[in-house]
């Protein structure tokens, strides 16, 4: 089970080092305890659902003629807020740039930013899913150790 722990620790460290996660994610982890053992996964699952909805909305809004920059900005604002709340640093930063392009009513900039946002979000989601998978494997391994002889 040691190698699993090491894998988890390394992966988590890398996510922080590479800026996918910031201190706010650590705050979420601190809020998880015996009374709320799945808190992080619950919040992140909600974040995934919320983000995917917003990304879709932004995509559709950019296809409209004429483009409603105020509405797209509202979506970007929401995405920025939720990213900040869960510690999704890279996603949050792209949202900041996105909002600037919205304010400038720069369509090309917005389209580029949306692509970047989708990319960062995908990377974050995959990395987090792997993190949760490792945590689950450790849990399962721990359980089977206890039930053996």
């Amino acid at each position, binding site marked *: 089970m040691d190698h699993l722990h090491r894998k988890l620790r390394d992966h988590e460290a890398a996510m922080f080092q590479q800026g996918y996660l910031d201190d706010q994610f650590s705050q979420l982890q601190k*809020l998880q305890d015996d009374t*709320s053992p799945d808190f992080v996964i619950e*919040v992140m699952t909600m974040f995934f659902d919320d983000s995917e909805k917003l990304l879709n909305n932004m995509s559709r809004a950019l296809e409209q003629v004429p483009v409603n920059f105020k509405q797209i900005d509202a979506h970007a*604002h929401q995405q920025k*807020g*939720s990213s*900040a709340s*869960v510690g999704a640093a890279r996603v949050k930063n792209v949202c900041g740039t996105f909002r600037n392009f919205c304010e400038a009513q720069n369509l090309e900039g917005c389209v580029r930013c949306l692509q970047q946002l989708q990319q960062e979000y995908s990377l974050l989601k995959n990395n987090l899913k792997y993190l949760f998978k490792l945590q689950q494997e450790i849990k399962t391994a721990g359980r089977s150790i206890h039930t053996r002889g």
Partner: protein
Amino acid sequence: MAQFHVLAVDDSVIDRMLIERLLKTSSFHVTVVDSGTKALKFLGLVEDEVRNEKPHSIAAETDQVVEVNLIITDYCMPGMTGYDLLRKIKESNSLKDIPVVIMSSENVPSRINRCLEEGAEEFFLKPVQQSDVNKLKPHLLKTKVKNEDDLINNKRRIHNNAIPLKN
């Protein structure tokens, strides 16, 4: 000792999860709603009754007196903003003494000042952290002591006015 009851208001589902967990970790009893309108309903104030409401806030559905010791609300919400909600609370005879805290993801000094001037106790920048929530208890205790002081003063007054009967 009874727990303090905090009403949290935020239109973001993620922020609602976060604030609820933060408050519960600090041993508060928590009610979370997603709009200012729902907050006022919970507090027993329906919008058009604001001006002529009765001294006790009576929850519309349950006919009970709802006791809320602190309200913490997001600033940016569709429809009724946190600032609008703050104003309605401070304009209400039954609710104006409840401490109100505002949260916002944006650091706008004029916004912060406006809220503090309107009577907000604190203004937290999001994401809200444990260290922010730790700042809430003093505001709650202040209100409790104020109420207890009234009780003590009333008792003293009665005692002083009592004329001992002597033979």
